[in-house]
């Protein structure tokens, strides 16, 4: 079973509308985007050459890497551009509780 470990991260208003911000959780840099009606989270590092996706321009429900303009679907993490690439970003589920963005990390299996 792939359960999630839910983490209360930050008040919704600490991420401006249609922008992203990075947060470090358990050693991972995760980018969280505010799309107005929902928040989306992916790994912050661009699979191309490591560009910071939190600094990208949000285009609808995609983000464009600020370094060389690779484009990713936030929902699935799939590369939209360049079409020839099949790398995929890890995405994280989010929900909002009492105005706080809550992020689901994969359950770490403890021995």
């Amino acid at each position, binding site marked *: 079973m792939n359960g999630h470990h839910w983490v209360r*991260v930050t008040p919704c208003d*600490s991420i*401006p509308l249609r*922008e992203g*911000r*990075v947060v470090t959780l358990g050693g991972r840099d995760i980018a969280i985007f505010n799309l107005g009606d929902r928040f989306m989270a992916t790994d912050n590092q661009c699979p191309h050459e490591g560009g910071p996706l939190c600094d990208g*321009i949000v*285009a*609808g429900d995609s983000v464009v890497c*600020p370094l060389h303009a690779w484009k990713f679907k936030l929902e699935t993490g799939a590369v939209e551009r360049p079409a020839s690439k099949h790398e995929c970003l890890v995405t994280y589920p989010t929900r909002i509780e009492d105005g706080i963005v809550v992020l689901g990390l994969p359950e770490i299996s403890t021995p």
Partner: protein
Amino acid sequence: MRTRLVVVGNGMAGMACVEAILKYAPCFDITVFGDETHVNYNRVMLSSVLAGEKAADDIVINPLEWYQQRNIQLHVGVRVVDVDPVAKTVTGNDGRVTPYDTLLLATGSSAWMPRIEGLDKDGVLVFRTLDDTRELIRRSGPATKAVVIGGGLLGLEAARGLQVQGCDVTVVHLMPTLMERQLDPDGGHYLMGKMEELGIHVLLGRTTVAVLGNGHVEGVALSDDSCLEADLVVVAAGIRPNVELAHKAGVAVNRGVLVNDYMETSSPDVFAVGECVEHRGVCYGLLAPLFEQGKVLAATITGNKGPTYTGTVQAAKLKIMGVDVFSAGDWSEQHAEPVRYEDRALGIYKKLTLRDGKLAGAILVGDISDSHRYMEWLRTGVDLTDQRRHLLFPPPAADVGLDVAEMADGATVCGCVGVTKGAIISAIHDQGVNTLSQLKEATRASTGCGSCTNLCQDLLRAVAPEFEEEVKKVMCGCLPFAEDRLRDILKSQRLKSVQEVLEIYGNGQGCEVCKPALSYMLDMLWCGDHDEDRSARFINDRVHANIQKDGTFSVIPRIRGGVTTPDELRRIADVADKYHVPMVKITGSQRIDLLGVRKEDLPKVWADLDMPSGQAYTKGVRMVKTCVGTDFCRFGTQDSTAIGIELERRFEQLFTPHKVKMAAVGCPRNCAEATVKDIGLVGQEGGWQVVVGGAAGKSVRKADLLTTVETSEAALEASELFFQYYRESANYLERTYDFVERLGIEKVRKETVYAPDAVRQGLRDRFSRSKARAVDPWLEGREPKHPTQFIPIQSLEKVRA
């Protein structure tokens, strides 16, 4: 003596009919009376005048010379108040009595005023004439509350126009959906959504029972017992044909002046055309029928009786930018098969009705690109059985000229004026027509509502031997407009935020191409007085530094003209030490670069440097390189260092379509490479050469000479004119070397240094207004735009690695 023809009404139907009459052998001495104080203008375009897209001068159809050249006696500002059918005279409100042999009534219609208490109050207006339109504009403004009574074509266009003029607008409509005469309830709902997206309030199923206020309008009372505040009330509840004179002339009148298929009234001496007539029980309120009537009437009245008028398929298009609505024919579903398509997310609704395999009516909301095809099907009554699969989506055309090629010669291109494809092709061949404006001149096609403009362009492209297309690249898939068009839209529609533009004219989302471009355009157009949206800008412009390959940033402070001080150098050195800056480098632009600064350190670095931003990260003013000039150099003829510093001071902090790099040199040896800069000042004995459009990056281009001037102030002024002109006219990401090359330096000179006083003053004023609002972006380090602008988020809950 020739027959005396007196025309009452100097409007579109009257003058179109006179034009048609003049095509026959001359048989009349013509006198025209018009009670408006203007020559004949395009009434349809009043909506565009109100919406700020056109000026009054742009909509004139027949200028004074037109009347003079045709020996037409024109009396403007004179209202005909009486007709004596026995003596055969008309009397004007100036007392003048004019005899006629034949009388042509083209009196149009007037706004219909419903029975509402208080309509006589100051501030209640209608929307029919140019004077009405000017009055509406005069009374509109940011705090004005306007109520439009009537949610038909005219009411909605008035509402949008008033909103563009700054008003807060509410439309009150009696029926349960908008434009119910043109749209079914579903179509009406789609339209309603679009109007509300524009920010126009719509109240349906309510009537206005009274206009409130003490002398001046203060509000309206509605049938549901509610009240609305209002400073302005526009009545757009319908029109009534002007038939009083027809009564006096003794001709048969019902709702309008009754005419038969030859356009004859009940009297042989009196004719009528346009909105004032009633034909087979219909009074028309649109252009196309009026032009058709005019042609038939012209034949009858000149003794060439034969052609008949049998009625017109009505078609209407809403002229609100970004709200596409088209309706034609009979779209009711009674005894008809409806074919539908809808997409709520995109706001597209299409419905066709078919009867006996033929198109009976069409409704299009949100996408009217196929309206022409449907109009043609309606006019020709073609059997569509074979095309059933492609009614709503035509099979993709293999070649782009196919659409035009498939049209028959007799097919109508311009529905308003009634110009066929064949007529356009002969105009192209016989009259050497090559451009759209020549085509308008020769055939009047596309001078009515303008919806056939694209088709005319397509025809010109296909047929005209020397048709030169202005190559217009559209912005991107999200926002399919050429940039100059987009600038017009933003300006005329007074749009002030990126998201608003995307929602009304684009796909609502935008991308990394259009968002920064729109951000620039809005900043430039409103001289900085717009709603800046950081999310629409590239990361460099969100944090005022240049992002590096490892996600850190570079910091380049402004060192005007490349001149610094020991003190400044010491501070730079201290900052480099304190923040462990990995590299300090002298740049190619006479400045110092601190590379590898972390985002969260930026505000502290700026504060410690205590120097303004060099803006090396943005599309804006970079540097002015200078040489040492007269102060030290043995060849120097001009003080290049001082003028360079001054130039940088004047232009810095302003955004530009692409980066702007400048240089000033003291003599033609050109030590600071001014002749390969966007703007260069080259000192010479007795003055300066101002050169523009130079490059030494991806391209190498020697700058063109803009002008030669004697004083430093004149050199700065010429630079300023060019600089502002470039800001306003270049496409986003177009460097001056492409811009000047595209336009040609002659044109650039004409529009800047050689432009009329008023034009130059305009450029200078807008430049100053932008400059007055510009600030050093690094000050934001002290007062961030957002609490997390520079710092990463610290999670409320910790997670162990």
